[in-house]
């Protein structure tokens, strides 16, 4: 499902209308999604997989995924909904690629920052409860200040480079690094208290 954005001046469609097109099973939904969000979703995927072709495939998987789940799903926030799908697709591809070689992506760097408590490239243990961990991380993020929440999400969810985060917040790189160090320290404590082995 290869789609190209049209180069003519064009106003992005409202999310509600795009979702409506999905519900009508109108393929224009994918075209409009691609036009409005391609650049953004591409950046999400690129931070993880660091490969243009892989990103293209992640985007196509994202559109197909959205097509398959809308309806019956009716996302209230389309951008966040697409972000979730793209990230999942990219992470899946990242771990598949990782089996073959090291990927020089921002995701690799951001994961290496967590090496105090995240390490090993093996598969998920059979008794591992991802939903529970998701809940613990969510609680942790909510406990942070607004700025730290933004930094955590930028660095460890979408794997934004530190320079980008610094620029977003009009902070210096060193200030962002300092904040990240504080976040990691608190996160380590939280995970330990929840029984996660370090």
């Amino acid at each position: 499902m290869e789609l190209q954005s049209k180069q003519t001046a064009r106003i992005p469609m409202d999310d509600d209308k795009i979702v409506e097109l999905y519900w009508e099973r109108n393929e224009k939904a994918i075209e409009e999604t691609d036009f409005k969000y391609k650049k953004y979703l591409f950046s999400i995927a690129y931070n993880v997989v660091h490969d243009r072709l892989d990103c293209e495939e992640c985007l196509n998987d994202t559109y197909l995924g959205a097509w398959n789940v809308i309806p019956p799903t009716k996302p209230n926030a389309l951008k966040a909904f697409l972000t979730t799908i793209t990230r999942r697709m990219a992470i899946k591809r990242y771990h598949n690629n990782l089996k073959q070689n090291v990927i020089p992506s921002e995701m690799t760097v951001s994961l290496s920052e967590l090496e105090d408590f995240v390490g090993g490239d093996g598969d998920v243990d059979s008794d591992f409860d991802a939903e529970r961990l998701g809940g613990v991380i969510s609680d942790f993020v909510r406990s942070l200040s607004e700025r730290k929440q933004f930094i955590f999400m930028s660095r460890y969810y979408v794997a934004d480079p530190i320079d980008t985060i610094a620029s977003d917040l009009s902070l210096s790189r060193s200030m962002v690094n300092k904040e990240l160090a504080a976040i990691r320290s608190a996160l380590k404590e939280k995970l330990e208290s929840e029984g996660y082995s370090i």
Partner: protein
Amino acid sequence: MKKKEWNEGLNYLDPDLIEKHIEQKERLRQKNKKPKSVWLRFGAIAACFLLIASAVIAVPMMFDSNDPPPSFSDEGSDQTDIGEAIQLEKYYDYQINDGMFAPYIGGKVIEEGNVGSKLENVVVTAGWKNEAGEWLTVETLNAEVYAIACVESDVAVALKFIDQGEAVTTTHYYTLTHPNAEYNGTVFPDYIAENPVRYLEESSMGKSNGWQDFGLNGEIRTITVPVGSSYVYQMYSYYIRNDLKHIYWNEDLPDTLEKLPEWLSDSESAGRRTFWYSMGLRIPVDITVEATSEITSENGIIKFLKAEYTVQIKDGLNEKEEHWVIYFMEEDGVYSAYAVLANENFDFVKSYSESIVKSYQNKQ
């Protein structure tokens, strides 16, 4: 913890946090667009002169009907704490001072083609509010209230300012909606929880709503990937409404199933089109019952009332015609509907959906 486990955990991050992050990022991006250097500021000022000169001609052409009219702004561009930046956000609001439209809430700009006759002159309080909804500045403006085509004025009206406000024009029509208006304020039932035909499934994409429909072999059929893989399903959108009382909880439904198709086509009675609104979030302008007939399931037990509809939908300035076939059913005094919107060949969709309905035997 392994890297893969960490990432799997992040896949289950609360969606609210993801939405919040996206909103924060967009706000920061907007804020960071402000020119910072003296030279950039100078350039911006020069550009402003050009912009003002051209705005008189260009703005009415550029103004997109989907843009919300009240401006959002943030102050303190030097603030670095995102929490502080968010707290300083302000927005422009307006409210009619007296009369029946006083409680109405401002909304988006509406195209002139959708505006009807003038209803009255009003005085409006407008100005900037902080995040808590408190007025920061106030201006008093004269304005006119207009009807909106196909919308009753106790639901929504259009407002045109006579006096120029700080962040509204005198050339556009702004919608004003009753906060508890029939359509605007309607909270539709959670069909995931309340409709037993639908269910929550877990797939590789995470949790989503799955579907069950009338099975070809007599059972309720489970569709894990509801559409997309089958061209047939692309030919129509379908909606199952298991208990119409969920939609018309405050109204008496007709006492017999035979009266239901006409009852649902009454676009003049307030609230009657809610059923249609629940299927695609659009309110039809006109609904016509073209034909009705009774069909029986192949096992001879369940009787359905089939109704074919032509429905006029107004989408902006464009009006379009839709064809629906709806199978109504009554079980223990509860009315259900299996509604099919034909996107392509109506006769094919009808015969296909009818074969599904005939195979219906019982609910699980």
